[in-house]
């Protein structure tokens, strides 16, 4: 853990963010641009699904990011609760809305892909249902994190929810194997070579890498904002309890 503690001080984290953020932002733009160009310009339609297969280039990366964000939050929750890492909760607070947005994109694009291919927008299928639960976990985390005036209580209770909810991640990942789901089994992250032709795998991986850089960029911005929010709360608290101008804070009420 001592390695992580090197970045524990907010100032050092912010200096790191300043240096890396422009790079991740530009890399995200280039990778996503390339992914879209290859995905729409060079990759063929699927022999069964036709052009709807192009929805995969945004559906699958957002699904991967939705899971990755929650896993990162669970690790932060553990780091915050167990090792008292001072930045852990702030980073998890920053990541939660990003993960929630990726989950919304994953569900929406999945429905838009399911309607032409399965003939229905939604099915209470194991994969779809567990991802919907993931969205509720994200929203619950965000609500819980902001529910308390006392930041420590907010941090601790939301961290516990993040850890408890992490059990849902393997359920999502293996839902397509454990149950007989409408949703197809894994095609990339599977034992053996990916079951996708390189003409489709290339844009998919470009978009996935682009989404990862996009996540890093947004996370730096939101963690910076979360740190400022705590600074603001401290300043307001200090001002509320500051002695009146010119007077002395005797701590006792002069009746």
């Amino acid at each position: 853990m001592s390695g992580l503690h090197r970045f524990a001080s907010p100032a050092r984290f912010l200096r790191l963010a300043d240096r890396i953020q422009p790079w991740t932002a530009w890399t995200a733009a280039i990778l996503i641009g390339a992914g879209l160009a290859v995905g729409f310009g060079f990759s063929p339609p699927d022999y069964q699904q036709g052009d709807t297969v192009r929805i995969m280039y945004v559906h699958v990366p957002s699904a991967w990011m939705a899971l990755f964000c929650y896993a990162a939050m669970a690790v932060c929750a553990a780091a915050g609760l167990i090792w008292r890492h001072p930045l852990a909760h702030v980073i998890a607070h920053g990541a939660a809305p990003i993960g929630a947005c990726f989950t919304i994109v994953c569900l929406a694009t999945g429905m838009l892909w399911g309607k032409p291919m399965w003939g229905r927008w939604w099915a209470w299928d194991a994969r779809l249902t567990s991802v919907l639960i993931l969205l509720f976990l994200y929203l619950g985390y965000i609500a819980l994190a902001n529910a308390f005036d006392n930041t420590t209580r907010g941090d601790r209770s939301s961290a516990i929810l993040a850890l408890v909810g992490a059990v849902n991640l393997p359920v999502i990942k293996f839902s397509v194997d454990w149950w007989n789901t409408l949703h197809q089994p894994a095609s990339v992250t599977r034992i053996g070579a990916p079951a996708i032709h390189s003409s489709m795998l290339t844009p998919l991986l470009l978009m996935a890498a682009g989404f990862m850089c996009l996540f890093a960029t947004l996370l730096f911005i939101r963690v910076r904002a979360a740190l400022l929010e705590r600074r603001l709360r401290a300043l307001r608290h200090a001002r509320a309890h500051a002695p009146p101008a010119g007077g002395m804070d005797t701590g006792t009420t002069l009746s």
Partner: protein
Amino acid sequence: MTELYEFLAMGGYAGFVWPAYAVAAIVIGGLAVQSVRSLRSLRREVAALEEAQPRRPRHTRGRPGSGTGDAA
């Protein structure tokens, strides 16, 4: 020109492919705009409060026990 129409038609699935990308762009784009905007407004608020706050004299800042009425 027909090529453009053919491309936009997406093999007849235009009604599903383009809305999927529109949703992704709107949700993630909206998140990015909101993130940057909230960061800027927080920066302004903190800067304003830091200016308004009476600055403690430099030599007492940071020294342990430099608070008032410290029992030596």
